[in-house]
């Protein structure tokens, strides 16, 4: 049985544990043994250690990477920022041996050593490459039945491409998440603002209204160009914006429509037979229509 270390981060286990439930269900269905990364921490988030200095950032990330190294597994994460922070730290240490050396000096105080042998996946690339679309297809119990999906890959899953071990052929024209949705029986057209930022993150904390306006611009384009049944995320932070952020826009009367939002692991888990209630229990935008459509597809 193939093993994989599941890196939780913060937003998934604390804000959207239904995504954690779904990821666990999905990995089990796909035949992976989930290796718990006991004692893992925040990646760390870009506004924390990375904004203090490079060695501190790399040391904090290396703490997480060594947990996987010690267990001899690679890592998968559902959060784009975790994917970015861990991979960028790994990349900096690879490029600057003196940083790695300083990090190892710090780690040695708690009896650890960072070697640099771990690969960090996000779920998009993991499903696309490690699992593969054919295998994914073979595990589907409820075909998506033509469900129209607008995908949101998320910036951190794409850039800086030099830090990532695998990526889209053209990061400004991402297709992998679309192909995954289509492999499960959905329809996932391209749209003109597909790579635009959703505004969640530092922008949302620093300039909340501007962040939500930016997000609304993107949603309006999605609505106008493809009018999807659902939006599908490759990143848990994007999910917070597309779900709770969208609900906030509706509440503020700035939006007069609602499009349900799911993380790709939620959609895939449901397609593989997960209990839709548990898999989406914390969604703010109601999903009812979507689940009926998927269930009718078998």
């Amino acid at each position, binding site marked *: 049985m193939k093993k994989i270390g599941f890196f939780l981060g913060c937003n998934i286990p604390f804000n959207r544990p239904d995504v954690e439930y779904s990821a666990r269900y999905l990995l089990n269905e796909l035949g992976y043994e989930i290796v718990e990364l006991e004692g*893992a921490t925040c990646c760390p988030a870009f506004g924390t250690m990375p904004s203090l200095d490079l060695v501190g950032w790399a040391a904090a990330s290396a703490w997480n990477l060594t947990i996987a190294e010690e267990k001899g597994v690679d890592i998968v994460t559902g959060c784009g920022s975790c994917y970015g922070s861990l991979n960028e730290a790994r990349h900096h240490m690879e490029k600057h041996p003196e940083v790695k050396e300083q990090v190892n000096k710090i780690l040695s105080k708690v009896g650890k050593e960072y070697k640099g042998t771990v690969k960090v996946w996000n779920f998009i690339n993991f499903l696309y490459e490690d699992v593969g679309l054919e295998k994914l297809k073979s595990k589907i119990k409820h075909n998506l039945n033509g469900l129209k999906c607008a995908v949101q890959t998320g910036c951190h899953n794409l850039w800086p491409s030099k830090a990532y071990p695998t990526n889209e052929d053209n990061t400004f024209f991402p297709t992998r998440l679309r192909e995954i949705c289509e492999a499960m029986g959905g329809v996932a057209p391209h749209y003109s603002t597909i790579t635009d930022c959703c505004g969640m993150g530092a922008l949302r904390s620093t300039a909340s209204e501007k962040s939500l306006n930016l997000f609304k611009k993107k949603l309006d384009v999605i609505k106008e160009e493809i009018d999807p049944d659902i939006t599908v995320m490759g990143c848990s932070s994007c999910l917070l914006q597309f779900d709770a952020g969208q609900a906030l826009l509706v509440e503020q009367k700035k939006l007069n429509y609602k499009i349900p939002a799911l993380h790709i692991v939620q959609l895939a888990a449901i397609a593989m037979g997960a209990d839709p209630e548990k898999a989406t229990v914390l969604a703010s935008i109601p999903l009812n229509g979507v689940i009926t459509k998927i269930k009718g597809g078998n």
Partner: protein
Amino acid sequence: MEEGGVNVIDLTQADESFVKELEALGADELRECIQCGKCGATCPMALAGLEFFIKRIVHAANLGLRDILLEDSSVWGCQSCNRCVEICPMDVKPYELIQAIRRAAMKVESCPANTYEGLRNLYRFGHAVYPKGYEERRKKAGLPEKPPTAISYDELRKKYQEILRNTILEEIAPFPLD
């Protein structure tokens, strides 16, 4: 601190030593910038309407405009998305400049209050984001109340804290590291 506070560039404020400080803090290709504007054209901060967006920040940094850069809040609105790094024809790595400015600002305690909140949470719990009521949410999703992260393992969390105490956080944190 306010956003978009830079409309007039005052060259008498130019300070070469600040350019060097930023280079040392990670913006080592800063001087390669040709002000082509590609970074600004792809930056979500610009799209969202923050006035002091990345092209202007690179410009101000090259002039060494310390006060403007340390006081303006725009650098804290950066999404760390790395579009600018991807697209810059001169490999200036504008995002690494943003981090350098933040690093300089942290040293003189010129950052938004929520930055400290994230750092304090990171140190205390091992999680920058540590929202109340998560046990209830986890139960709803059929999961154990606590995830198997540092929050569940006191000994491991203490080791992580020891690592953080051996970083620059020890000098900078305006809260006790105990």
